[in-house]
């Protein structure tokens, strides 16, 4: 699984690409936990290129969410595809992490410096 990333001030954004299932969840989880432990204030996962997420993908998010809480890092997800958005609701993961409609919304919520950096490109 290809996972691009970008730093906007104290916020790290991950851009995973592809189905989040048994074949890809391990790599995703590892990358996500690294991101949470990277000393940033906030981590945002841009879900716009994730067409599907299975239980094992959700489990990776749960583990990262727990880690983020104990590390005091804000973890959120943004720009879910319609299918993934439905799966978050069905699995009640909408109560596990904050979901933003767009990456920009997530960054806005993260911090001013993140938004400034994002706007600056």
């Amino acid at each position, binding site marked *: 699984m290809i996972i691009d990333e970008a730093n906007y001030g104290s916020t790290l954004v991950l851009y995973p690409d592809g189905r989040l299932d*048994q074949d890809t969840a391990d790599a995703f989880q590892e990358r996500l936990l690294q991101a949470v432990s990277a000393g940033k204030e906030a981590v945002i996962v841009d879900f716009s290129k994730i067409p*599907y997420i*299975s*239980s*094992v993908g*959700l*489990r990776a998010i*749960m583990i990262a969410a*727990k880690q983020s809480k104990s590390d005091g890092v804000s973890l959120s997800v943004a720009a879910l595809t319609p*299918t993934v958005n*439905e*799966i978050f*609701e*069905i*699995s*009640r*993961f909408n*109560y*596990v992490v904050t979901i933003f409609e767009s990456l920009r919304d997530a960054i806005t919520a993260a911090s001013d410096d993140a938004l400034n950096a994002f706007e600056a490109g």
Partner: protein
Amino acid sequence: MLVRFWGTRGSLAAPMTVQTSRKKIRNALRKSIGHDLGSDEKIERFIDTELSFAESGTYGGNTSCVEIDGGGDEYVVCDLGTGCREYGNAIMSKSVPQKAPVFNVFQSHPHWDHICGFPFFVPAYIPGNKIKIHGCHDTLEEAYRMQNSAPGFPVDFDMLGADIEFVKLEPGKEYAVAGMKVTAMEQYHSGDSYGYCFEKDGKKVVYSTDSEHKFESIDESYGFVDFFRNADLLIFDAMYSLADAISLKEDWGHSSNIIGVELAHRASVKQLCLFHHDPNSDDATISRILAETIRFEELSEEGDALKVCAAYDGQEIKL
């Protein structure tokens, strides 16, 4: 095979509240406006076509009790939660007995919600009746004897009229009971629980409640995929949401609708039946969970088409 659900609720019996009852009436009346209800037939049709199951009926609130009728000449039932009161009453109300008075109980585990109906199972009081309680736990007899004794209950176990026998089973071994092939499988649950697979005439029913599926369940070799393989009906503990099942309620011994669909797909199950409903869920909530589960099955686009239903007290499924 015929499966009759007498109790489908988890943990504790959960009767409908007066508020829910009145809400159903209010909703039905509101929806009836503009419909011609001028005959009983039209009323029935209105109920069937314009009201959902949760609007006209109820999932009930009795704890686990599921009859498995393979057509044999003895009774077979999984667990004796509060639902077994009505099961026993139904048997007693027949003027002509349907089968020999031998009751083969398959016990998932001895937690209260799975045995608490027994003191009100009328056939247990009838001399000449035989009750065989099958299970893999060493503690079944202890649990049943403790339940039917002071200070909890006035009729001591030894005073019951029926001849009651405890039959220890080994997981993985095949048994022949009431004309069916029965196999048990150990499940992850506090104090262990066991699932049961019933096979007859090429049909397969799996009763798998109080079973948590942990991370290992994604492994190719996960034993439950084989245990569920090609089941015509999989009765599956889907008490919690996935989020709850893997966080707050991890190790509480229950599973979710999401895991149910994924395992059922991998095992090429034909029908998945959500079971062990949370006592805090009302009818509307259970129906919502069912609709979401059907939707998740569609979204998951894996395996063969899988039918999904949510068990209700009084339901019959013919296979």
